[in-house]
C-alpha cells in the first residue's frame, strides 16, 4: 500500500560529486518535505471542519430539528445559537454566512455545548476523556507496533518455517475478527468466568483520582484487559506487513552483500534488512491510524473505558450531535498530528526523502 521512495534516477560517469547537505539535524530538502506535509494537514483539517458543517445539512430531514424540539426548552440562548450555526437551523442567514460563522467558532475552540452533559461545553467533556484514550491507545499501539515488527521480521527471516506458518495462519484470523467481539470474549473469559481482572471502567468507582500507588495500580489493573485486546487485534496487521516488506528486502542485493561482507546476523537483520523494511511500515503506520482509532473506540465501548470512544458511544445513543461533531474534529486532529510525527520519523530514518515522493 505504501510506496517507498525510489532512489533518484541513474546518473552515470564519475563526474563531479553532487552537492551535499551540510550540518547536523534535518537537511533542507527534508525540511521542505515536512513543510509540505504540514500544509497538507492544514488543508485536511479544514476539509474535516467543512465536512462536519455540511454533513447534517445534506442528510434527509435535518437531524438537528428533532434535537431542538427535544432539548430546546432546556438550553440557554447562547447554546441554542451555537447549535443553530452548527446545524443550519437559522434559515434567514445564507449558507455561506453560516459556514463563515462556524469556521470562526471552531477556530476559537468553541465546539458548542454538550446536550448529554449539559451545561458542560463539548470541549471540556472531550478534554476530560482524552487523557484516558491517549494513555490506553498510545501505549498499546506502541507495544503492538514494536512487537508486530519483531514478529514480522523473524517470520521473514525463517520464511516458510514453522514459526512463520503458524503466525501467518493465526494472524489471518485475528486480522479479520471484529475488535469488539474479541474484546467481548476476553471480557467474558478473563473478567467474568475467571474473575481475574475488573470488567469495566478505568478505575474502581468511588476511588478518588490522585497520584497514590493504590490509585495507579488500580488504573493499571483496569487497563490491562482493554490494552491487551488492542495489542492482540492489531498485532497481526504490523506483523503481516513487516513480514512481507522484510521478505522483499531480504532478497535485495545490499542484504546479500551484507552477508558476503561477513557482518554479524544482528547487523544484517537490524541495520540492513530491518532498517529498510521498516520504512514502508512507518508510512503504513500513518495510513492505518484510522483503523487503530476504530479498534480503540470499540474496545473502549466494550470495557466502558471513559475515553473518547466511549464518549462517542454515549453521544450517539443520546443523539448529542454537538458532541459527535466535536469528537470527529478532535479525533481528526489527533490523527493528523500523529501523521506528522510519523513523517518526522520517516525523514530521520530515510536520507532519500524528497518532496512529493512520500504519501
Amino acid at each position: 500500500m505504501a510506496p517507498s521512495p525510489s532512489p533518484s534516477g541513474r546518473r552515470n560517469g564519475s563526474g563531479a560529486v553532487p552537492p551535499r547537505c551540510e550540518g547536523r539535524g534535518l537537511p533542507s530538502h527534508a525540511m521542505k518535505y515536512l513543510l509540505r506535509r504540514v500544509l497538507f494537514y492544514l488543508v485536511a483539517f479544514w476539509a474535516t471542519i467543512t465536512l462536519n458543517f455540511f454533513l447534517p445539512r445534506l442528510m434527509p430531514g435535518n437531524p438537528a430539528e428533532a434535537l431542538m424540539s427535544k432539548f430546546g426548552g432546556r438550553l440557554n440562548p447562547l447554546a441554542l445559537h451555537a447549535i443553530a450555526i452548527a446545524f443550519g437551523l437559522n434559515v434567514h442567514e445564507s449558507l455561506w454566512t453560516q459556514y463563515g460563522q462556524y469556521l470562526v467558532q471552531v477556530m476559537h475552540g468553541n465546539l458548542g455545548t454538550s446536550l448529554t452533559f449539559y451545561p458542560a461545553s463539548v470541549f471540556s467533556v472531550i478534554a476530560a476523556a482524552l487523557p484516558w484514550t491517549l494513555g490506553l491507545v498510545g501505549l498499546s499501539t506502541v507495544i503492538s507496533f514494536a512487537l508486530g515488527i519483531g514478529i514480522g521480521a523473524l517470520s521473514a527471516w525463517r520464511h516458510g518455517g514453522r514459526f512463520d506458518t503458524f503466525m501467518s495462519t493465526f494472524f489471518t484470523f485475528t486480522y479479520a475478527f471484529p475488535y469488539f467481539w474479541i474484546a467481548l470474549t476476553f471480557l467474558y473469559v478473563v473478567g467474568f468466568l475467571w474473575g481475574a481482572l475488573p470488567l469495566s471502567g478505568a478505575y474502581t468507582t468511588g476511588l478518588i483520582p490522585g497520584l497514590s500507588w493504590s490509585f495507579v495500580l488500580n488504573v493499571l489493573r483496569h487497563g490491562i484487559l482493554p490494552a491487551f485486546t488492542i495489542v492482540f487485534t492489531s498485532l497481526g496487521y504490523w506483523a503481516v506487513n513487516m513480514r512481507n516488506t522484510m521478505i522483499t528486502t531480504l532478497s535485495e542485493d545490499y542484504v546479500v552483500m551484507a552477508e558476503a561482507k561477513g557482518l554479524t546476523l544482528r547487523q544484517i537483520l537490524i541495520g540492513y534488512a530491518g532498517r529498510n523494511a521498516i520504512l514502508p511500515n512507518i508510512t503504513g503506520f500513518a495510513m492505518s491510524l484510522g483503523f487503530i482509532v476504530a479498534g480503540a473506540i470499540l474496545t473502549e465501548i466494550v470495557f466502558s473505558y471513559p475515553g473518547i470512544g466511549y464518549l462517542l458511544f454515549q453521544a450517539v445513543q443520546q443523539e448529542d450531535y454537538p458532541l459527535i461533531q466535536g469528537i470527529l474534529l478532535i479525533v481528526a486532529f489527533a490523527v493528523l498530528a500523529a501523521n506528522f510525527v510519523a513523517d518526522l520519523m520517516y525523514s530521520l530514518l530515510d536520507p532519500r526523502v524528497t518532496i512529493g515522493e512520500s504519501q
Partner: protein
Amino acid sequence: MIDAPSASVSSRPRRVGQWLLVVRPLLRNAKARTGVAIFLFFGLVALLAPILSPYNPHLTIFAPGASPSAAHWLGTTQSGQDILSQMIWGTRQPLEIALGAGLLTTLIAVGIGISAGLFGGVYDEILMLITNIFLILPGLVVVIVISSYLSSANNLMISLVITVTSWPWGARVLRAQTLNLKSKDFVKAAIVAGEMRFRLAFFEVLPNMTSLVASNFFFTCLYAVVTAASLQFLGLGNINTVSWGSILYWANNSQALMIGAWWWFVPPGLAIGLLGAAFALINFGIDELTNPRLRREAK
C-alpha cells in the same frame, strides 16, 4: 551478447478475454481456495435460508435464555427467539453489504484512479488531494457520524456510507498502476495511435490490473463486513433487521455476557470473523500470485 532472443512475456499486454484466466491460478492457491470455499458456504446458507432455518427468526414464543439443546441448537435469546434461525437469516445482510460496498468502492476507485492517472495535470492533483484527505480521516468515526444522522438505514445506505470511507485506498493504488502502465510501450503505442481515452482505459489499462482491482474488491468486502457489524453493535444502521451484527447488539444490550449466555454472542462473532477471514484469505492468495517473492521458493 549471447542471450537467446527470449519472448518477453511480461511486457505483452493482457487482453480483455484473459480476465477469466486469473481465476484458475487463484484456485490453485491453497489460501485462496479456502477463502472461496468459506465464502461459497455462507453464500449458500444465505440463499437457502428459508429452507435451512428451523423457525421464523422473529418469533418470540420459545423459553427465553435457554442454552443449546436439540430443539434449539444455539439456544434462545432473552426474548425467546431461536438463535440458529437468526444466524441463518442473518447471513444475508453482511453478504449484501460486503458485496455492495465492495462493488461501489471498486467502481469509484477504478474510475478515479484510472482517470487521474491517464489525464494527469491539475485534474489529477485535485483528485489526489481529495483522495489523500479521505484516506487520512478516521474511517469508522466518519461512518459513525454519518450513520448517527440517519434515523434508520437499509443495506444499500450502509454500503454507501462505508464506501465514503473506503474508496481512497483503491483509487491511490490504481492510479499508481495506471501511471506505471502509461510508461509501457503498448499503452504509449495506443496513445500515439490516437486511441480514445475511454477505449484506452477499458481495453489497455484496466485488463492489465485485474489482480489489483480484485484485491481491492476483496479488501473492501473485509472492511465492510467488520464495519457494518461494528455499526450495528453500536446500535446504528437498523438494529431491528436480523443480522449477525444486530444479534450481537441485542446480546450486549441484554447483558448476555453477565448471565453467561455465551451461545448468544459467540456464534455471530465467529461467523463475522470467518467471513472476514474468507475475504482476507482470497486477498492473500492474490497477493502471493502477484508478488512471487512471497511464495516460498528459490530464486
